[in-house]
């Protein structure tokens, strides 16, 4: 015991003697310094600059000019801003619950004993590996009102399909349908969570006379609720920032389809097409605050809804 105490007391003396920048406490910082430098140069400094630009009129080609809260006030009276807010909100409201529901349902199915389970798991994950632009091009053809596969299938059951990507009433359903294409990543997380649910809970539920649905409702869902929370937060962040797919599909040489105009697209247009970096920066900060607020709300709500296992 006394030997142990002596050796532990000797450690600080030794390190203090070596001292200087090579002190062991600095080792960690030295190892993470590439990340720190990168994050400072490409994240923290640009964020700070964008906050400053949000209070300026900054057309990029000329120096920024202080306008105070002018850019934030301008949003209130900008009809295009409200249109893109509405479109993005509607997209999130439909896409997040549908993606979550579908991913949980697929995971539950693929977690059971079904033939070719691994094959189907791979099939569902595969679309997430396809680049966004490539999948947008494929969907443009699938949704084509005249030659598209979807309308061909509808025609086979006697339904005349709409012009999905042109008709303002069908643009949003098309976008939401397309978003379901990328549920593979969430499915993988849910399958992992499902496999972590203790078997004895199901046995206990069966003994108590629960059917399959009741087991799912009272055992599975609470047990995978942390995974659901994680995926819903990630989906919310992604959905609020939706950009590449609608940019390819709805910003055409003959003009932007207003029904397919989303927040991040308008932000980009202001920054790099209209040369209004100040206004775009203000929009970016509003977007960040909204995402933070939504995430905070979900975390607060999760205290009552999410079940964490105590080990």
């Amino acid at each position, binding site marked *: 015991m006394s030997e142990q105490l002596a050796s532990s007391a000797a450690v600080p003396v030794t390190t203090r003697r070596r001292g200087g920048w090579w002190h062991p406490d600095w080792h960690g910082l030295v190892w993470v310094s590439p990340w720190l430098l990168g994050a400072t140069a490409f994240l923290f400094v640009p964020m700070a600059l964008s906050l400053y630009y949000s209070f300026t009129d900054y057309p990029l080609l000329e120096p920024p*000019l202080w306008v105070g809260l002018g850019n934030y006030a301008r949003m209130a009276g900008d009809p295009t801003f409200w249109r893109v807010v509405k479109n993005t909100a509607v997209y999130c409201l439909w896409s997040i619950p549908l993606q979550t529901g579908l991913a949980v349902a697929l995971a539950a199915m693929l977690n059971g004993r079904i033939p070719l389970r691994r094959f189907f798991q791979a099939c569902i994950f595969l679309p997430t590996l396809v680049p966004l632009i490539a999948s947008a091009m494929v969907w443009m053809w699938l949704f084509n009102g005249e030659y598209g596969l979807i309308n061909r299938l509808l025609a086979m059951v006697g339904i005349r399909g709409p012009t999905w990507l042109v008709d303002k009433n069908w643009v949003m359903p098309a976008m939401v349908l397309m978003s379901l294409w990328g549920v593979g990543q969430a499915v993988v997380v849910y399958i992992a969570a499902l496999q972590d649910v203790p078997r004895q809970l199901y046995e206990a539920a069966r003994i108590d006379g629960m059917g399959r649905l009741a087991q799912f409702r009272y055992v599975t869902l609470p047990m995978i609720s942390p995974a659901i929370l994680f995926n819903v937060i990630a989906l919310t962040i992604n959905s609020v920032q939706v950009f590449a797919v609608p940019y390819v599909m709805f910003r055409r040489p003959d003009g932007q389809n207003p029904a397919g105009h989303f927040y991040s697209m308008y932000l980009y247009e202001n920054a790099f097409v209209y040369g209004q970096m100040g206004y775009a920066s203000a929009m970016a900060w509003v977007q960040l605050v909204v995402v933070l607020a939504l995430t905070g709300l979900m975390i607060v709500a999760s205290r009552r809804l999410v079940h964490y296992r105590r080990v």
Partner: protein
Amino acid sequence: MTAGGRALADVTKLTRRAAIGGLAAAGLGFIAFGPRGAREQGARGRIVLDYWEKWTRHERDAMVKVVDAFNASQNRIFVRCIVTSDIGQKSLVAIAGGDPPDVIGLYAFNVPPYAESKAIVPLNELAPRFGVQLDDYAPGVRQVMQHDRGAVGGGGEGTQWWATVNTAGSVAMYYNKALFREVGLDPERPPRTIAELDEAHRKLVKTNAAGDLERVGFLHREPGWWSWLWAYHFGGRIYDAATDRSLAASAENVRAMEWMQSYARDLGVERVKKFNESFGNYFTPENPFLSGKVAMIVQGPWVANLIGAFKPEMEYGVVAFPEENAERDSRSPVGLIDTDVLVIPRGARHPEASMEFIAWTQRQDMTELLATAHFKPSPLAKASEEFLSKHPNKGIRVHYDILSSPRAFIAPPTRAWQQCKDEFDTAVQKMWRLERPAAEVCGELDRRMQGLIDRAADEKRRRGA
């Protein structure tokens, strides 16, 4: 530490040393024997200019020939032609970041906002020193090259010269002669007025047994690149540069938009939507003009290139787009001028050398070489007879007439134009879908455009012009 542990530590050390040593050796090897850029290969001892150009495929190839000819013509300057996509955005960032290329090939509509911000070098004094004169260019083309920074908000130096034009385009009507013949129209006597255009269109409309459209004469939104230009063919404008006012609610524009709505009403909005979906992409043989689904289109001279590539047997004619009233004076047709421009960005390292290169591209032989490859007219006022007679575009003289016409027009020269154009496009979509009367939508559009124009003017004033 056990013997096994020591062995593992030794192996780890060895592996780490080997990895670091390997990476260092690879890095040194790359530096010593890696690929060499053009700077090292062909430009030893010369001033190297970076020239960003947006063109790809055959258009790029033609420009590369001009650049190669320049590089071979002297031994002081070496130009690297760098194909750059999204050139507007990248130029904006490069100039703002203080690291621009030496020469940029932009679009005509970029000139006013860049000039307003002094993001490009004025050529008034520089260009004449290299033998390039404003008078060398066709009258319509000169509108694109110049801009008065002081026209709005004051503070300018009067009209200044900001850009040269490497290829010029004017917008005309291309029509399918075979389809004209098929429905009993005289292919040598294309429509000259809007009424004649309507009549030809009605004759050319073809539907199938289910009532779906198979062919139309004319569609305003195919390809729909210039949704704002109809007012000019109704005797009006959409912007007055002298007063910096939007004219979107002018009687001429409202009449033009009502005319457009009459097509949507006659053909049926839903039917046209479905018909539009059957069109292939512009740069493919499924282009609706090439496939015979649309008989008359508003287009620039480059469409002749598409015809040559995908449907060389197509019999087409070219005429200035019809006007609402009276017979057109063929010497002064109305038409949009839409060109590519060459500019020297602010902060360019070698403005003199850049101008020397630009002057080379503006020589008559070079402009004609480039224009022939692009199927376009040359931007210069004078063209050689050989160029005109051997030109691959059958409508080249029509495009020349427009370039030289006093009634030719350019995109509104306001720095708010990009945003105004997007507003215009959105409003036109509303009108095309017959959601609301044209007068109402135009009134709303006018207010929004004026708001954007006023804000741009305010910003300029705040900056002390």
